[in-house]
């Protein structure tokens, strides 16, 4: 579970720190920096999982416009079964040469070293924190990304796996494809590869499919089941619908043919049930988009029940009254900033009257 994120000199995040719980709702005005937090986590994952170049992931344009410094730093504190993992990444930008490099990258467990990459030199440590090999490495990428799992680096490998399993999502149903070239254990940012991810879940975690099918039958009128149909080298995801009593033979439609709201609901419940007990942290930007009003609270209840109980952590961004009123009071964090000022986590708006819902107060802008 991600306990803390720190960022400095990244877009509007200047000396910025935020703590997360099992379920966190980020609220606040447009332009406050909520999605920037998600972008950053997505980029850190990209760097560590895809072995991407620093220059590609953190271009100079991501430096804070009004901070005249060329160093960026990021920290993640992640709670795992062995303790608290602390990852730190410092990037140096050279505006004259238009180059970026990793100045420092380290991973600690409860304050003791597991890995260090400093000014081009990598120091590895064993699981018991005893020093291991030392070697020089390319500053333009993350050295941690290149460490392969071994019997004596299980703790470091756990952290890398946690990063790999980060889902940072802003669902775009119109772009979701029904075609799957291969299984994928990761759902990409806009959820467009859902068919491939579903294919993975149905192959590797078949036990979850029965429950998911039942849930979707309860949620989506007429839903019967999914089907993956072979089409040359690809598979096409089909969604079967039947009449209300499930007495007629189902008619199957391409996943792309069903409505935007149905696609989003399918993804939202698939996340809850498909990721159960798999250790993922999920960041969801405005999950309620496209979902009918009547379906929001039941999903929130299911999410609330799941978080910490098989579903380690969810962080949501929303402006929707249903989310604000259901979760805001206990799980809410208020994120905002002054124009050309840094993003800050502010105290939640103080309630001015017991009859006024938090969402209504937010709607009126009575947050200060």
């Amino acid at each position, binding site marked *: 579970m991600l306990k803390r994120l720190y960022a400095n000199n990244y877009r509007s995040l200047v000396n910025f720190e935020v703590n997360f719980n*099992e379920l966190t709702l980020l609220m606040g005005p447009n332009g406050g920096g909520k999605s920037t937090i998600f972008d950053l986590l997505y980029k850190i994952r990209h760097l560590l999982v895809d072995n991407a170049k620093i220059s590609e992931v953190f271009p100079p344009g991501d430096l804070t416009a009004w901070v005249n410094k060329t160093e960026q730093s990021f920290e993640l504190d992640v709670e795992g079964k062995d303790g608290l993992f602390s990852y730190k990444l410092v990037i140096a930008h050279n505006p004259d040469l238009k180059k970026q490099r990793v100045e420092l990258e380290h991973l600690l467990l409860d304050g003791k070293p597991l890995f260090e990459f400093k000014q081009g030199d990598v120091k590895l440590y064993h699981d018991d924190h005893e020093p291991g090999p030392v070697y020089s490495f390319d500053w333009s990428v993350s050295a941690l990304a290149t460490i392969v799992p071994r019997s004596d680096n299980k703790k470091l490998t756990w952290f890398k796996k946690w990063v790999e399993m980060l889902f940072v999502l802003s669902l775009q149903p119109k772009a979701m494809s029904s075609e799957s070239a291969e299984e994928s254990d990761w759902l990409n940012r806009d959820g467009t590869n859902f068919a491939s991810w579903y294919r993975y879940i149905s192959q590797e975690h078949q036990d979850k499919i029965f429950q998911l099918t039942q849930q979707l039958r309860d949620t989506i009128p007429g839903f019967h089941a999914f089907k993956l149909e072979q089409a040359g080298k690809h598979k096409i995801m089909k969604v079967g619908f039947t009449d*209300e009593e499930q007495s007629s033979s189902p008619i199957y439609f391409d996943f792309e043919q069903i409505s935007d709201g149905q696609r989003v609901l399918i993804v939202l419940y698939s996340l809850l049930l498909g990721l159960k007990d798999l250790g993922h942290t999920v960041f969801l930007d405005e999950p309620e988009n496209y979902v009918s009003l*009547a379906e929001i609270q039941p999903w929130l*209840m*299911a999410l609330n029940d799941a978080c910490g109980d098989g579903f380690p952590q969810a962080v949501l961004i929303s402006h929707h009254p249903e989310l604000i009123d259901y979760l805001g*009071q*206990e799980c809410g964090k208020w994120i905002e900033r002054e124009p050309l000022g840094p993003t800050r986590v502010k105290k939640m708006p103080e*309630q001015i009257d*017991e*009859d006024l819902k938090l969402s209504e107060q937010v709607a009126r802008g009575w947050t200060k």
Partner: protein
Amino acid sequence: MSIRRVRIVLLCEDSQQEAFTRRFLEGMGWDTRELRVEKSPSAKGSAEQWVRERFPNELKVYRQRKPKAASGLIALIDADAKEVQDRIHEFKEVCQTKTVPFREDNEAVAIGVPKRNIETWIHYLNGRQVNETEAYEKLERQRFCQPAVTNLVKLCKTTGLAKDAPSSLAAACDEYRNRIESLI
């Protein structure tokens, strides 16, 4: 399943009351999708007042909906230092003030009044000796009430509550049985 249609509206003070009651209803066979939770905007002292003030409006809405579909209304409010009957009487008074007739015997409108509060029930159902005057510690996580709820559901479905059960819990079980289970 067709489009979601709520059958029970749950008015409550906070998320712990919600977690307990919702899980109980689910245990008794209600589908989450049939429930609508309306909890106080504030979990502080005024939450009980919010539930009380909201009650007459929900009662009116319940009566309008009832002819179209079997529905129910459940309100949860902590007794704190008061008696269960006093709290129920307060609902009656606020209904009178708002010129909404109070619930009739044949209406699926239940009022649960945990005394002293919901933690009293939870700790009792977890096997602890409790009294209804002491304030017991809150759970670290609301979902940790599940074992207590499971126990309550089991008792409700089999032997019923033991004689040493808090009287407010026994009263709430009667409310559920007579007003929700029997009338919806």
